[in-house]
């Protein structure tokens, strides 16, 4: 479980997050909406542990551990992983090498790469000359190798062409144990201009014996879903492919609204972030 309480964060002298609260239960995936500059990436970077994001107050707890001041690599080893929007290029560092490094218990890099249609890139320098879509596939490959328990996605669909977006979506689903047949959750039948009408399915949590509220995965009967996801999206395209439990609107450094992802997205499209933050609050 990820629990964020009263989080205050500064970047340089600027207050980025102000008294932010957020709880994500095991097995849940949340979608993070918000206008440019609202602090979405800052929130992800703070959870990941980037030192330039100074926590000036509040607390982050993951798997019962206070990680507020834990180093970035310790967090990674605890099971937090991130797919970046614009990761750095590193000359001479082969993509294969970094994927190997991600894996704690050895992983078949070639098999993983084949799944992501990325074999040709394994012996290229990481991110050097990669297109937007190639970066996303490389980032997801690294997350797969890491097998993160809390996966943070910063705009996983940006720069991805239409052919590859379903691959990205399916991969995120697999990472979050949401694969095989499950439909995106929605409160009501939705018809987005960008995609076909989706069948409706509500996502009610089922109580587990431990008292927590994990979800059953549709494709793997009996398996308890534990992976947690937090996804930033601007375009909302990813909603067509990834099932999510909750939508959050980050506005002015706080979570200003919560609700069903598709509903929230619809509202944002209709009335804009500002209004939406107010009405959903």
């Amino acid at each position, binding site marked *: 479980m990820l629990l964020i309480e009263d989080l205050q964060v500064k970047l340089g002298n600027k207050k980025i997050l102000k008294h932010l609260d957020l709880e994500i239960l095991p097995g849940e995936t949340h979608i993070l909406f918000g206008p440019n500059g609202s602090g979405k990436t800052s929130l992800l970077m703070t959870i*990941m*542990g*980037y*030192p330039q994001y100074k926590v000036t107050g509040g607390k982050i707890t993951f798997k019962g551990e206070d990680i507020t001041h834990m*180093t*970035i*690599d310790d*967090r*990674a*080893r605890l099971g937090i*992983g*991130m797919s*970046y929007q614009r*990761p*750095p290029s*590193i*000359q*001479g*560092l*082969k993509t294969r*090498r*970094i994927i190997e*490094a*991600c894996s*704690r218990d050895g992983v078949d890099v070639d098999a993983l790469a084949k799944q992501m249609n990325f074999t040709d890139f394994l012996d290229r*320098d990481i991110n050097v000359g990669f297109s937007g879509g190639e970066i996303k596939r490389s980032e997801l490959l*690294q997350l797969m190798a*890491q097998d993160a328990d809390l996966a943070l996605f910063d705009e996983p669909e940006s720069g991805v062409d239409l052919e590859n977006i379903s691959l990205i979506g399916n991969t995120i689903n697999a990472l979050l144990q949401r694969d095989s047949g499950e439909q995106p959750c929605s409160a009501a039948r939705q018809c987005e201009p960008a995609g076909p009408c989706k069948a409706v399915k509500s996502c009610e949590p089922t109580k587990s014996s431990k008292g927590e509220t994990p979800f059953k995965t549709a494709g793997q009967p009996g398996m308890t879903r534990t992976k947690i996801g937090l996804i930033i999206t601007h375009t909302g395209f990813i909603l067509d492919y990834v099932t999510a439990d909750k939508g959050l609107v980050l506005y002015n450094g706080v979570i200003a609204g919560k609700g069903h992802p598709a509903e929230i997205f619809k509202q944002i499209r209709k009335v804009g972030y500002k209004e939406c933050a107010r009405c959903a609050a």
Partner: protein
Amino acid sequence: MRSLDDRAHEAKDKKAAIGPDVDLDAYSLESPTHVDVKNLNLMPEADKEKMAFAGLDISEKERSGTYIQKDAFAIHSGSYQDGLEIIPIRKALKEMDWIQEYYWKLASVDTDKYTAQARLDLQNGYVIRALPGKKITLPAQACLYLDKEGFNQNVHNIIIAEEDSELHIISGCASASHVTRGLHVGISEFYVKKNAKLSFSMIHHWAEDVVVRPRSVGIVEKGGLFLSNYISMKPVKSVQSYPTIYLVGKGAVARSYSLLVGSPGSELDVGGRIYLRAKDTRAEIVSRAITNGGNIISRGDIVAEVPGVRGHLECHGLILNGGVMHAIPELKGMVDGVELSHEAAVGKIAQEEILYLMSRGLTEEEATATIVRGFLSVDIPDLPAPLKAEIDRAVDLSQKEVM
């Protein structure tokens, strides 16, 4: 005309144009006698280990021939492939007339006191030659080894790739573990003839108080390719080396790659100079240098003397832990219609890159080492796989030891 010996005598006290001056009298020219070694496996373990650091394959399985010199003595010399000759230079000078067409024909004895001394006090060195049309695909290996404390080793090497031949050499220099101080002077003359292909990879693995003064000159004829790699990552007191390559035939190509690590107390002044003297010739000089507290001067110079030639210089330096990194790239175009370019950068490892790798679970030290390893990984075109593997191995070993 004055004889070479006369000219050498006159240059005995001539300081080098660049690099700190060395007092030659502070070193001994008296070498203990070292006997021939038939089976490399019978050499002392400590020697084998040091030589392996410099790229020597003791088993010789992946090699076409071997030359080993310990102090002043050639202790092993042999070729295992038809068309490849490996001969100690003293023997060649005594028995083969043709060597006079190559001996001191590119390098000048009066360049400075080091060339003068190598002329006047020649100990030994190797002649490695691929005969016309012979493709020697397995690398030939050589090792110049300092075993006596305070010894001044003077070596002269001649490397010839005859017409249409192919030759790959890995030449390692190392000192025994009990040696802290020494001076190595190495003259090398490279002849790459018509349509021949030569790759020469030099790996240095010296001790902290060893001074090194290589003097190398190469010539590449029509359609020839000369690939010159230099790796020095181990602490060493001072290296000053500025090899010169002349591209004299149409379409000749030279590429020079250097990987350098400067440790505290080390002074590396290393570069490459290539003259483009014929149509369609091409030159590339690439260096990657890291200082950990040492002083590094990384030079590069491309001179274009005729139209229709191309050259590129790339000089990247990292300052990891103090020290000085001085990149001096030079380009000189002397006529219309030349294309010369360079990129030089001196900096540090970007924090963003370290954090990126840490977010994949690597510690800060692991992340730094991984990035440094990447920085030192240069894709060298036309280098055969076994040599590439050897260079990777040398870099890995040295990095573990140095970082």
